[in-house]
């Protein structure tokens, strides 16, 4: 069973996307900016509605759920939006803690413990109390990914996650998103969308797709 499925989804650029992301796989869909490839994660999360077709996460079409159920369902998916989506008036620490504080009944002491581990893992301890505008792009991206995986979700959706990063930093972020290795591949299932994937990472993903004129083709 695929964890994420796009069934004849019409992208804003005109191409039709039909693809399934199996569990424990890292799948990349790339294409030019005007192809609308950046909308795939938003379709999956129900933040946007495709003109045709449907996107299913764990066999559920989030956009059809009642609002409260859709919000609760989204907490099961890690989402790294294009840019970073960090709240500018919060420190990196509070940005990462926000989903835990809002979406779990965890005690502040437990949240603090978990955040400390993630900050160390992402090399953000020194800048944890800085606001997004006070740190560099790589640190912002690390913080945004830390926030996306703070719930330890099964599925992670990443929009243009490696733009402007060095290959080494990009490889490191990909490893964090994968969450380590499991019997079937990565521990987590990851969908990456963007314009291009750094060369160094091509061997580290399980499948690559490219948006052509009117369809999405698998790259060999």
């Amino acid at each position, binding site marked *: 069973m695929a964890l994420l499925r796009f069934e004849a989804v019409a992208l804003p650029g005109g191409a039709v996307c039909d693809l399934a992301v199996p569990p424990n796989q890292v799948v990349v869909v790339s294409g030019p900016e005007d192809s609308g490839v950046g909308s795939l994660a*938003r379709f999956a*999360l129900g*933040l946007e509605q495709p003109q045709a077709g449907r996107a299913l996460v764990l066999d559920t079409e989030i956009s059809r759920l009642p*609002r*409260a159920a859709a*919000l*609760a*369902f*989204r*907490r099961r*998916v890690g*989402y790294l*939006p*294009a*840019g*970073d*989506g*960090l*709240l*500018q*008036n919060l420190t990196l620490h509070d940005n990462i803690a*926000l*989903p835990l*504080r*809002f*979406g*779990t*009944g*965890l005690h502040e002491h437990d949240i603090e413990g978990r955040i400390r581990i993630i900050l160390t893992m992402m090399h953000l301890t020194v800048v944890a109390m800085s606001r997004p505008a006070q740190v560099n792009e790589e640190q912002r991206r690390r913080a945004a990914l830390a*926030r996306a995986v703070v719930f330890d979700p099964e599925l992670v959706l990443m929009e243009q996650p490696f733009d402007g990063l060095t290959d080494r930093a990009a490889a490191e972020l990909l490893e964090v998103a994968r969450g380590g290795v499991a019997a079937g591949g990565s521990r987590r299932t990851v969908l990456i969308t963007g314009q291009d994937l750094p060369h160094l990472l091509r061997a580290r993903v399980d499948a690559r797709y490219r948006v052509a004129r009117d369809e999405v083709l698998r790259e060999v």
Partner: protein
Amino acid sequence: MRAPIAFVGSEVTRRVSQLGALARFFLDALGSFGTLPRAGRRVARHVLVNQIWFTALQAVPLVIVLSGLLSFLVISQAVRELGRFGATEIIGTLMVVAIVRELGPLLTALAVAGRSGTAIAAELATNKVMGEVDALEGMGIDPLHYLVLPRLGAAVVSVFCLIVLFDGVAIAAGLIAATANGMSTDRYFDVVLRSLAFGDAGVSIGKGLAFGAIIGTLPAFHGLRVGRAPTDVPIAAGRAVVGSIVAIFLCSALFVAVFS
């Protein structure tokens, strides 16, 4: 001939539908209180306290200056002029009707709308432009819970408290003005308290709640309606403050029509 009529018609339709969207936004924001997750209450309370700090506490000096100067000037002039005709009795009515019931809530709300209304609209518009609102949705956090509800609550609490402060300072400044112009303290309190009715306090409270709701809702509504362009931020802030001022005056007129 048809073109101007069509223009007026479409403009009226647009305004009415915008009013409907605003009313729906307000009701959604109120209704979101019922769906706020238990865990989210702690975070929302934290945002609420921060907003009260910014909206109410930081505005205290401004309100004291406005209220003190207004009351001092009006009462000192009134004592001098009305004293010539032995009509100092009217000072009580002037203080209660003009300052406590009408100008106090109005000036306080205008000050808060200019100061905090623009800030709320600009902040939420920036949140939207920077993709932070979508990121919140993507994390399963309702922007109404995290961004709107605490600001609405804080605006209501802040405006109400600042109106009470305005009235208190106005009465104190009025006393200073009256005694400086030869009126005794007992006489001042006698005429003011005699003019003060329970209904005046009720109207003042009602205005505090209504004006607070306007300042909490309109800027948030305009802030969250922007597109993706950074140039939309100042436009939203401008619309928010103009809309809030117009709504406050209309609401004030409505209070006069209903409660006079």
